[in-house]
């Protein structure tokens, strides 16, 4: 499974690189780096959203698309499925991963809690990009209570 490790290392370097050149530790500078990461994830998500569902038959409803994200997308990128998907049936979905591969190497517990959002920005963009190719405008945010478990909240925006 060398490819999983390759992506993890590349991702770690991306985050490190964006933060190393950031001489401005104020919230403004941080926000730019986060949005750069999200933008990268978005473009990758758009391409994946075209490539992955190629052989699957057409999606019937929103929930099918979210299930596709939790199963096929997560397996393709992180080699595991999402652990749980909850919804309030009104356009908000919470995807929970109990051992997120990009956080698993760091710590188990509350150490590094403030650093965790940097490592989730790319994945938030990825989810938003894939949803956008599949026709859903959304806002994705991530939250960490204790590493390596994290939750991605997807809010569908009705135009």
């Amino acid at each position: 499974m060398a490819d999983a490790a390759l992506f993890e290392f590349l991702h770690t370097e991306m985050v490190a690189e964006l933060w190393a050149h950031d001489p401005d530790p104020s919230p403004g500078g941080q926000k730019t780096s986060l949005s750069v990461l999200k933008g990268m994830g978005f473009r990758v998500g758009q391409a994946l959203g075209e490539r992955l569902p190629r052989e699957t038959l057409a999606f019937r409803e929103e929930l099918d698309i979210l299930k596709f994200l939790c199963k096929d997308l997560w397996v393709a990128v992180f080699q595991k499925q999402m652990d749980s998907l909850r919804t309030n049936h009104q356009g908000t979905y919470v995807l929970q991963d109990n051992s997120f591969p990009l956080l698993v190497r760091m710590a188990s517990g509350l150490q590094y809690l403030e650093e965790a959002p940097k490592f989730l920005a790319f994945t938030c963009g990825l989810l938003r990009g894939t949803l956008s190719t599949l026709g859903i405008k959304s806002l994705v945010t991530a939250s960490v209570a204790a590493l390596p478990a994290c939750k991605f909240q997807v809010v569908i925006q009705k135009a």
Partner: protein
Amino acid sequence: MAVCVAVIAKENYPLYIRSVPTESELQFHYMVHTSLDVVDEKVSAMGKALVDQRELYLGLLYPTEDYKVYGYVTNSKVKFVMVVDSSNAALRDNEIRSMFRKLHNSYTDVMCNPFYTPGDRIQSRCACACRGGPAGRGSCSESK
């Protein structure tokens, strides 16, 4: 073989449209435009019919006296429309399906190209060549 191939974005504007050079290329553009209505009709009809899962290939959209028009929709609501000469011995369904599959593969490759921004017109010599492959066996001379 196919006389016209079009890739249409989900907002219904053409991303790529190529036809065999004839005097009436505009006619093909009109045909593709009118076929969009038929595509929408089929998609919403299948959606309401509560079939378990909808197929991507839509089949024959409508026949005219000289041409037949076939359609295909991807999961990202990008539509492919192909206009075929009726005078050919009827092309079998699987041949049309395989042409669409190749088109879908080429389109996916275009999406994955880092120099391509989604939503732009597709200008790609490879795309021309791929279209020349399944669609042309000598009938399209503009593929590189």
